[in-house]
């Protein structure tokens, strides 16, 4: 490939040129950012006007799980997609065994923190409907708890029944789709909630999303298939056969 190196080589040879170009770029960005213009003012007013109908009193949660719930649905699918790709990358038996390097500090930390983390996650989930917090914050903390367990080389991803892990990861995407399709079958647009059910549906979606996000994050951190899935290395044949 004659052209492939073009983009990489030239900046390395002429760092000052790159520097000047990037500074110019930054200057342009900053100028455009600072230039006073008519400020349209975003969507704060619209959100406030429809907040009562959304079923929750937290504005961010209302945006995430009601006004723009379709974004959140796709986002759950992005996490699922990440797990799919990471698993497919690691299914060829390239996983190296993990060193069990458990320090006393980590073990103590884990004992102290894990219950607290699960508690905080639950609180964030509950707080999300009225103030800062919600499914993603809770999911992130659950994921953190999972990471802590994995650091301790606790094989919880391996002990967990395979079916449970896979269903747990797909719980949020499936539940979102089910809610959306249920609305469609009743003649409403996709992902529309009835007013009297909105709060309940949003809380249920949040719980499912937090759970799946936490599990996805821990699985992504592990970066591999659970042990029982790994096949005996067959790469020798595979390499010979090409494609």
């Amino acid at each position, binding site marked *: *490939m004659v052209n492939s190196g073009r983009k990489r080589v030239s900046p390395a040879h002429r760092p000052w040129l790159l520097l000047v170009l990037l500074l110019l770029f930054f200057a342009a960005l900053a100028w455009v950012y600072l*230039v006073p213009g008519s400020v349209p003012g975003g969507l704060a007013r619209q959100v406030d006007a429809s907040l009562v109908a959304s079923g929750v009193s937290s504005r961010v949660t209302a945006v995430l799980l*009601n006004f723009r719930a379709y974004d959140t649905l796709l986002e759950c699918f992005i996490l699922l997609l990440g797990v799919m790709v990471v698993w*497919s990358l690691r299914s060829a038996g390239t996983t190296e065994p993990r060193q069990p390097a458990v320090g006393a500090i980590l073990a103590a930390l884990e004992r102290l923190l894990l219950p607290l983390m699960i508690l905080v996650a639950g609180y964030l989930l509950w707080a999300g409907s009225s103030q800062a917090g919600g499914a993603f914050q809770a999911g992130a903390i659950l994921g953190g708890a999972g990471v802590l367990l994995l650091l301790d080389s606790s094989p919880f991803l391996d002990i967990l029944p395979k079916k449970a892990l896979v269903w747990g990861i797909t719980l949020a995407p499936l539940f979102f789709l089910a809610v959306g399709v249920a609305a469609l079958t009743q003649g409403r647009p996709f992902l*529309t909630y009835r007013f009297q059910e909105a709060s309940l549906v949003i809380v249920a979606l949040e719980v499912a999303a937090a759970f799946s996000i936490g599990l996805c994050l821990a699985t992504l951190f592990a970066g591999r298939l659970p042990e029982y899935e790994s096949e005996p290395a067959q790469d020798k044949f595979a390499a010979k056969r090409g494609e």
Partner: protein
Amino acid sequence: MNLSPDSSAWIIWPVVVPLLGAVVCFLYKKKPRLAGHFFAVVTCGTSTVLGWQVLSQGVGRHLLGGWSPPLGISLRADGPAALMVMMTAVTGLGITLYSGGYFQSRLAGDSQDHRFRAQEQSFWPLWLLLWAALNGLFLSGDIFNIYISLELVALSSVGLTVLSGKPPSLVAAMRYLLVSLLGSLTFLLGVGFFYKAHGTLELAVISKALAPTPPVIMALALVSVGLMLKTALFPFHFWLPPAHANALAPVSAILSALVIKGSWYLFYRFWQGGGLLAAVGIVPALLGSVAIIWGAFQAFSQQRLKMLVAYSTVAQIGYLFVAFPLLVDSAGQGRDALFYFAISHSCAKAAMFLAAGTFFLQLGHDRIRDLAGVRQLLPVSSFAFALGGVSLMGLPPSGGFIAKYLLVSKAISQDLWWLALIAVVGSGLTAVYVFRAVSSVLSPHLLEERPLLVVAASMQWSALALALLAIVLGIMAPLPLALLEVT
């Protein structure tokens, strides 16, 4: 609740069905091929319903969650969107049938190999998710939602690229991923500036109100560069050939025929308003012209068939951009030319990549000079490859001919002679490299090598069906053009 009367449910199904299919294929690992075929056929059906509805009832809108923009997200199915969904459906169905045969042949050749089984298990959910993301991209009316869809497309494409597992494909996939992320982030920064300037994320509002104020120009520039990176327009094409050529056969076809069309279509969406097109529409046209010439020369100098076809994609992407100055006046012929290039390239390129993949599977290599005689082993695939080449060259009566005819006549009517000249020269150059490949494929030389494995019939015939469609597109031109008129 703001329940709106114009919420047509048929718009959302082409997104929901493949999403559901992806999850089912992910959960149900025993027979992913069966589930994959089922959901591909249903997706194709729902896409056809969408195309038919748009053709008969006009533009449809679906307000997700019952909230109208700018608060909520809307899906909008107009003529161009419906045409792209239909293109994805038809090409996607062909690729799906091919993939079924492809994995079946490889597993039958070596049933002990867990690797092929794992490849197939990963392929079906990724492919359906990619399909859903593309449909979502074509229909979405909200620029932040488009960003998420773009990321879905990018990640699933990378996932499909790495399936082959060969080191070159891994490195190519890494480069593809980094370029893709750079493109998405640039796009996202542009989204931020658009939101700052307009206070809304609705695409229709933004593309209509492209005023030449600094924030809008910056936003449009960022979005355009991000999308050009993802579409691999010259000079951002460097990542495409290795990624497309080193992937599995069906994946090469998916990437070349469909994935690049997603970001290209968005580029059209942002520029279609035309406000700034008169001033700077020349830039994509110039880059496209260079891409046509450069891609053709690169294609000609390749030793491997799949690399040749991949560089031909670089050249054909040029055609997708040269017609942008023609969009300025509203007669619609420039738009027709653009979209005709997109759909005929989709069918022709899928057919060529699928046929090239069949050669590779049968011979174990795709060196162009050693392909002589392959037509005896694979007559149908060879014919499909040649027919795809005919459409790329733009010989009548193929779809490629209609596209070039529309482009050249429109360019001449606007006194853009150089544009017409580029199109004609590009055709000549395409003919040169296509002849080089086709003459090798069709030469009556006797092949000494024995075929590696038995190729399923569906692999040969699905490629031929797509190639024939690329030709037939020239004859049935009124139908897609009528669909494009719905805006």
